[in-house]
């Protein structure tokens, strides 16, 4: 579990101020002075929590019709860099792993704040570029052949620069850019051989801002703060390709961009469908789901080895792989999967390790190294919240965690914000040795300060008490049958109901508009690297309606997004003070 609080600092702060006046549960209707939305300033609601069903009133702080989403300028992530290097040189060059990884404490890895260039990162970007440059120089013959009609090394270099520079910068080079790279070549060529001098050019390209940053400036003059820009074809091709493939535009996208076709939403849609149907979409799309649900690489040492001796590297890795296969099985289903299926389906893929973990009968267990589709017991394994990786990630080393799991549903699936507790909260309660999650939650709930927020988290997480610290199913705990009754208290997202166990929770979430709106909001944050999502409110509202109209079809949502005004424009951020 990682906190998203830091990525939404300004918002958390606003909520903290509310908190000092009124605790979560007493916030009432609150003042909506910030035009907030689903994440607006009222986490709590005045309801007593006994009502069920959804609040169908329009949430406060509604969209006022402003177009475009303020999007920060993003920098290429480590994963995108590796894919891009492979793409640029036809797979002939191993991408350097010296390129810095994003700061993992931010939810979405393309958040610009996770990719700020420190001194060390600048050095590592340089070292990575030099490593790739050397590999290109040494392997030049297998990567690129100088057209035979070009008589001189200089002409050859110019052709190399024109082709690879354009692909790296994801648009045709401006003459001054080509000249600058040619100068780097000429200076190097004075003392070095031709192929090495081209390696120096590659090292330059891979450190250039045109390559490292997704620069979106339209094709007009220098834009003003807050301006709404129409993106160029090249910028659109780049957005689309990095969103769905995490790599540079391929030949077909480049051709469409060069032909000026991408201003046409139908063309964008056609390319999006093509990209989604390609295996290269798999890692990029699963990255969204992992980051959304905060599923990271699991480590055996994260769990108590005395209690969970079977939680070894093999099982930990298989859980994450199964998660990927499950979400992709829904999101990239040829016939189109829905958010409801994601939340309720028990159809997944397992290997022998996961088959054993889930208790799949021997005769249905795939052979070594094989993965096969299977339907698990829908009563025990409904939907993504009961995937082992999700449950193990959102748990303690030795025990499950009503807080983490409730927090995941509350912030990840409903987009409500739980503000930080007041100072000194840790000293307010203590838990008896060996107490269950339900017992600990009751202590928290009864405390007037802790309880005002924890009632919004723990009662949801308690509905997942059938799953232990590594996500294994359990009927009993400490010799008594598990009580998995839970409750979603009404808050700003509007959903309120009581339920029993993961199946009912999944069904509730699957049927809620709030879950669909939140999913669309998460997609916006991922797609645009948003640090502050409030400005995306109008776009989220509009796309949510489309999403609901399409029956929650994930494919339809993604296609609608990439053909929307939000995708095709960019509102420039204001300079932070």
């Amino acid at each position, binding site marked *: 579990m990682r906190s998203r609080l830091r990525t939404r600092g300004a918002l958390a702060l606003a909520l903290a101020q509310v908190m000092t006046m009124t605790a979560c549960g007493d916030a009432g209707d609150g003042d909506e002075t910030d035009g907030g939305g689903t994440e607006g300033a009222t986490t709590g609601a005045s309801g007593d929590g006994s009502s069920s069903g959804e609040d169908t009133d329009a949430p406060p702080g509604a969209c006022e019709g402003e177009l475009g989403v303020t999007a920060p300028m993003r920098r290429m992530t480590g994963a995108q860099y590796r894919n891009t290097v492979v793409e640029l040189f036809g797979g002939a060059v191993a991408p350097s*792993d010296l390129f810095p990884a994003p700061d993992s404490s931010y939810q979405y890895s393309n958040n610009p704040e996770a990719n700020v260039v*420190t*001194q060390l990162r600048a050095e590592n970007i340089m070292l990575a570029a030099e490593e790739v440059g050397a590999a290109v120089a040494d392997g030049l013959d297998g990567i690129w052949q100088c057209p035979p009609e070009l008589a001189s090394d200089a002409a050859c270099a110019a052709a190399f620069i024109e082709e690879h520079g354009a692909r790296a910068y994801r648009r045709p080079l401006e003459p001054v850019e080509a000249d600058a790279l040619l100068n780097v070549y000429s200076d190097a060529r004075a003392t070095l051989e031709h192929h090495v001098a081209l390696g120096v050019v590659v090292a330059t390209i891979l*450190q250039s801002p045109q390559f490292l940053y997704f620069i979106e*400036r339209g094709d007009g003059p220098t834009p003003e*703060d807050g301006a709404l820009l129409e993106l160029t074809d090249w910028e659109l091709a780049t957005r689309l390709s990095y969103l769905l493939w995490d790599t540079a535009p391929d030949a077909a996208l480049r051709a469409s961009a060069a032909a000026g076709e991408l201003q046409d939403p139908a063309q964008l849609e056609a390319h999006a469908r093509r990209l989604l149907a390609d295996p290269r979409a798999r890692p990029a799309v699963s990255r969204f789901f992992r980051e959304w649900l905060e599923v990271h690489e699991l480590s055996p040492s994260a769990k108590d080895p005395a209690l969970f001796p079977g939680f070894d590297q093999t099982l930990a890795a298989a859980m994450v792989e199964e998660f990927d296969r499950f979400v992709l099985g829904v999101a990239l289903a040829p016939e189109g999967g829905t958010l409801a299926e994601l939340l309720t389906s028990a159809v997944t893929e397992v290997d022998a390790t996961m088959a054993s973990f889930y208790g799949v009968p021997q005769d249905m267990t795939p052979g070594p190294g094989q993965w096969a589709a299977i339907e698990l017991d829908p009563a025990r394994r409904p939907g993504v919240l009961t995937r082992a990786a999700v449950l193990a990630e959102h748990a303690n080393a030795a025990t499950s965690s009503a807080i983490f799991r409730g927090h995941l549903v509350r912030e990840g699936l409903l987009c409500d914000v739980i503000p930080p507790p007041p100072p000194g909260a840790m000293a307010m309660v203590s838990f008896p040795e060996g107490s269950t999650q339900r017992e600990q939650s009751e202590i928290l709930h009864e405390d007037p300060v802790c309880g005002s927020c924890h009632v919004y988290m723990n009662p949801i997480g308690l509905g997942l008490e059938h799953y232990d610290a590594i996500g294994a199913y359990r009927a009993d705990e400490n010799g008594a049958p598990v009580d998995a009754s839970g409750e979603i208290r009404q808050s700003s997202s509007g959903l309120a109901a009581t339920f029993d166990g993961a199946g009912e929770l999944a069904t509730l979430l699957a049927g809620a508009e709030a879950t669909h709106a939140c999913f669309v909001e998460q997609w916006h944050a991922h797609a645009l690297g948003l640090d502050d999502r409030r400005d995306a409110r109008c776009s989220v509202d509009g796309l949510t309606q489309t999403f609901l109209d399409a029956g929650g079809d994930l494919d339809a949502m993604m296609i609608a997004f990439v053909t929307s005004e939000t995708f095709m424009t960019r509102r420039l951020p204001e*300079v932070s003070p």
Partner: protein
Amino acid sequence: MNRPRKPAAPSSAPRTSPRAGLRRRAFLRGAGGIVVGLPFLELLRPRTAVAGPDDAPIRYLQFIHPQGTVWNQWAPTGGETNFTLTPVLAPLQPHAQELVFIRGLNNESMWLNQLSNGHNAAGRTLLTAMPFSGNLDGQGDLLPVEQQVDNSHAGGPSIDQVIAQQLQAPTPYASLNFGVGGASVNEYQMLFGAADEPISLDGSPQEVFDKLFTNGDPMAPTTAELIRSRRASVLDAVGESFTKLNSQVGAADRQRLEAHADKIRELEKSLSNTGKPGIGCGTPEVALPPGFQPETDGGLYDADASRAFIDLMVMAMACDLARVGTLQYTNYHGPTYPWLGHGIPGGYDSWHTWVHAVADPAADPTVLDVYRWYMGELAYFLQRLGETPEGESTLLDHCLVLATSEFDNGSVHSAYSLPIILAGNLCGRLQTGRSIDRGGHYHGELFAALQQLFGVESSTFGWGPLCPGPISLG
């Protein structure tokens, strides 16, 4: 790490031919010199100008060994100056008068991270004394447990990087950081340049050798070396791209680009840093056995990597490539220590499991041997520093070495009374040959004292409430 292998040793490197009865080893040799900026011939000329301790560079080195030690029989017995070493410390006997043993310092800061497992918390706080950045709110205050994360980067820099920042040494590298057992630190990310700025380790002796000591044969440089030789020109062109773009984008974008361009300018500046190689500077002879891999499941080559990295570190210091360095033994989970000839006895699936199971390490000869091995490596490190001349004395006299572990007692993830050894007298600034008890103090207070030895004026380090001030080293 699946980093593609770099070209093997420089083509000019001689290799010993296999001889019957001898273990064949591949020797890495370079012609001397460093990658960045330093003219090749410079190194062949003894730097007699570097003479007295007054103008000798001061250095800070770290030796970090995992999983604690023989906690119940670690501290030397006897008095402050007439002490006797315990069995686990026995390999350090030849250097006893160059050491300060400190017991009693607690890493209380690991417990600020209440949701973390013991390893992440201990590792990230050991050298930073700061809670996770994810456990701090926007004002830098600690979040309550419900809002805490189970892991994130440290909320501040590690002591080595604070000292590097203070020294501002004119060396090609601000610090050199080696992972004995490989670059993967797993739960033990210990070095941070600042909050949220983890520093990675070099895990391959071969790659470090290539990076630091191969201008190779100036007659036959590798492609990578040739490309690096164009660094100044490349960074210059990159800088110009930033400048040009700045005039074309909006103000917020420009702000981000300018912040990055600043770092490029700092890189350019560091290119002219050549350090001041001392008379001990030369090319290390690094021996690696055939089949050597920096990172294996059982840590099969850790003993070889240890000696190689120690030799590389010592020579890097002698050549003034950096003045701050860390050796971190990264293989804490499954090393099998085959060179000790014990094996991991049945019933334990890993060294890690074994550590957890051993209540009385002093009573278990195998466990004692493992922990003592690390002290033997420390002794070798000190020996090499002590026999490398610099000016009229040795490198060791101009160094401060910190040796410690993230735990005292690995079986229960305890970080109380950390096993701390200081070595070297830092040009006379530290009085050695002592064993002292600073019971009741926090380990951040030690770092507050160490940073002052290097001229940092602040009297606090890490998490303020756990650092009332520097401990006395006198």
